[in-house]
């Protein structure tokens, strides 16, 4: 059990690191747009431009 005295503070350090990284990411604007990235996954297949001629 005494290993917890080491592991838990270690976990807290990791937590602090994660929070710091997230704050940095938010501050640099990476989370300003919460909608488009979700869409980009669906849309960014390399669609080739339509090759059909335009009959109109």
């Amino acid at each position, binding site marked *: 059990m005494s290993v*917890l005295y080491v592991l838990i503070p270690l976990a*807290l350090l990791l937590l602090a690191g994660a929070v710091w990284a*997230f704050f940095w990411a938010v501050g640099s*604007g990476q989370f300003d747009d919460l*909608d488009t990235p979700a*869409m980009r996954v*669906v*849309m960014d297949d390399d669609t080739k431009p*339509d090759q059909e001629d335009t*009959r109109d």
Partner: protein
Amino acid sequence: MMTGDKNHKTCFHCALPVPTGCELTVQIEEEQRPVCCPGCKAVAELIRDTGLSRYYDLRDAPEPGVGRPPEEAAEWKVFDSPEMLDAFTESHDDMREATIYVGGMYCSACSWLIETTLGKQPGVASAEVNPITHRLRLRFPAREASLSSHLATLADLGYQPQPLSPESTVRPEVTEQRTALKRLLVASLGMMQVMMFAVGLYSMDFQGIDPDMQHFLRLVSFFVTTPVVFYAARPFFTSAWRGVARRKPGMDLPVSIAVGSAYVASVYATFTRGEAVWFDSVTMFVFFLTLGRFLEMRARHRSIDRSAALSSLLPNTATRIDNEAHVVVPVSQLTTGDHVLIRAGEAIPADGVLASGATSVDEALLTGEATPQTKVVGDELSAGSVNLDSMIEMTVTSTGGDTTLGTISRLSERARYARPAFVTLADKIASYIVVALLVVATGVATFWYFNDPDRAFVITLSVLVVTCPCALALATPAAFAAAGSRLSQLRLLVTNGNAIEALSRATLAVFDKTGTLTIGLPRITAVFVTDNAWTEKDCRVIAAALEHASTHPLARAFALPDELPVVTSHEIVVGEGVRGIIHGREWRLGNASFIGGVAEVNDSAATHVFLGVDENVVAWFELEDELRPNVAQTLENLRGHGVGTALVSGDNRAAVESVASRLAIDDVYYECTPEDKLAIIEAAQKRGEKVVMIGDGINDAPVLAGADTSIAPAHGALLAQTSADVIMLGDSLSPLTTAVEMSRKTMRIVRQNLAWAIVYNALALPLAAAGYVPPWAAAIGMSASSLIVVLNALRLNRFE
């Protein structure tokens, strides 16, 4: 998505109705799609040819007209001069960064389209769009030194780009979202960690405790909970304090008391090795509350998007006259006293006084008045209105935020930024409950203090947490927020939450005519050819050619896709019509006296435009403002829901009655002044009717404010929109029926939620007061009851 009904084809790209006779189509994904004008065709083809057709599948339904490119390409080259580049970009090493406001973007698919298209352009290092603020950050190598090509690309996509001076500060809504995200993250990570330690602490209760380990776990929980309380929960404390200072305690007060006292007691217990700690309850409570606030903020931001679009109504540049020389300057550099030149078709860049020339202007944006206003020297011109007929010079009297347009924009922005009224109402109810709750809690604390002082604190804490009026306070706003978000998908923007309640009780819908029941754009309903030498088709083509260069609102009715004959010596006569030479003969199009002939027309319901050649009348066109699609069906449905219909208009009798008879409206009032309209509505309210007013003009503003609920179409006057509870984005009136059904369903859900919250509190309070509910169970009960309320409200999102 893009389904117009059979009689009314709508443009695949911009959703405006396709003019009769227009046969333009674009092939997208194996199908021929109708478009309304060559501009939209070009945009749709550009999007298809860059392989981005998926944009059309993923975008939200467009607001009609948004995305339609202007008829004349704007001049972007001015932005390439070194002075302009310095004014509109920032240099970072060998990169330049420009901030561009993108008018006309309305959903995430737009930002994807913009980022992808610009990202593929040579010479673009990065392009990032912020969909909250509609701002594009474009970075390109300094040696490229060209902003114009990128602006032109945006314009080609159908957006209205507007370079902004570099902003040193981040927009307030962005800062708000960033802070809220950080708070949410701290609360959620903190909650997860503390829960984990709590599991250890609880299981040790059963298995026997190693006191040192218990102390250690409590200490660790204390470390994690502290930032949750002091950082994530700070808004609740400040808001509770504001409530106390203003003597209007809100629901944040018991929240703060519960969080604060549980935290202090837990800290005390930790350091004195006391009985129990409640760090787990504290963090869970804070997390759920923070999550709720975050979702509420996102909904609010979505509804203010539109007000930002107002700044794009002004042109980017103006032509200033400096000692006879014409200098193109950014509008932001105009100052009072400047002389500016405004060509026909250009928007007026600032408020001012007409200094030379005469013209007519379209002030529909400000006043909702579709008829052009004639202006002579000395008349005032308002920023944002469009110069229609001829080149004029103007002396600037006020610019930017000081203009009429600026003031109206600010008003409407403030109206939207304000917390929706229903939250205030819920807060009012909650504050009574809060006071009652504090009294009960004090009673419980006193009772247990004298009977079992050891348990007094725990029980009081449980009472405070379990009876937190969250479910009660959430019952109404959660349902209204869900209804609001569903309604916005159905193209109705709710700006005042009370509107939903009022709408659910509506018994009478009062309509304005022009621009509300009708589209507000005239269409040719009949052509009378008086000279047999010409066919109807000839007349249409010649009229279209003459009107082609005119920006007059009536001109749009004549738009034809065919090849048009060349017009020379084209001239617009202010207030009269247009003339020009086609195939060597002088043609005129305009009012009867302008042509020179007199025609027998005695039908005041329609507008007539005459076509003449060499001073002889050849034909006349009957133009009528067309009814919106599905109006008759919508009114029928409304009556089916027990909502009566009435038509109140300032127009003359013939015009109003012709519309009323086609729609089977019984209550018809014509030639009404705004005072008359208000009186009609007040009389109806005295009879006990709940009135919904649907109108778009600036003169409708007081009437809209007087009705129980008011709805304004988005293309109407801005001032009408500021006083409206609901803004109708679409071209069709059919969402009205949906709105009534939706509001009734919403009120049903609100009643269910309130009933549940009351039953829950009635059951939980005695149990907690009797000491049967430990704080962690109280926290779960409180969260669960709130969750049920929210989930019930979310059912509204699936409303069809």
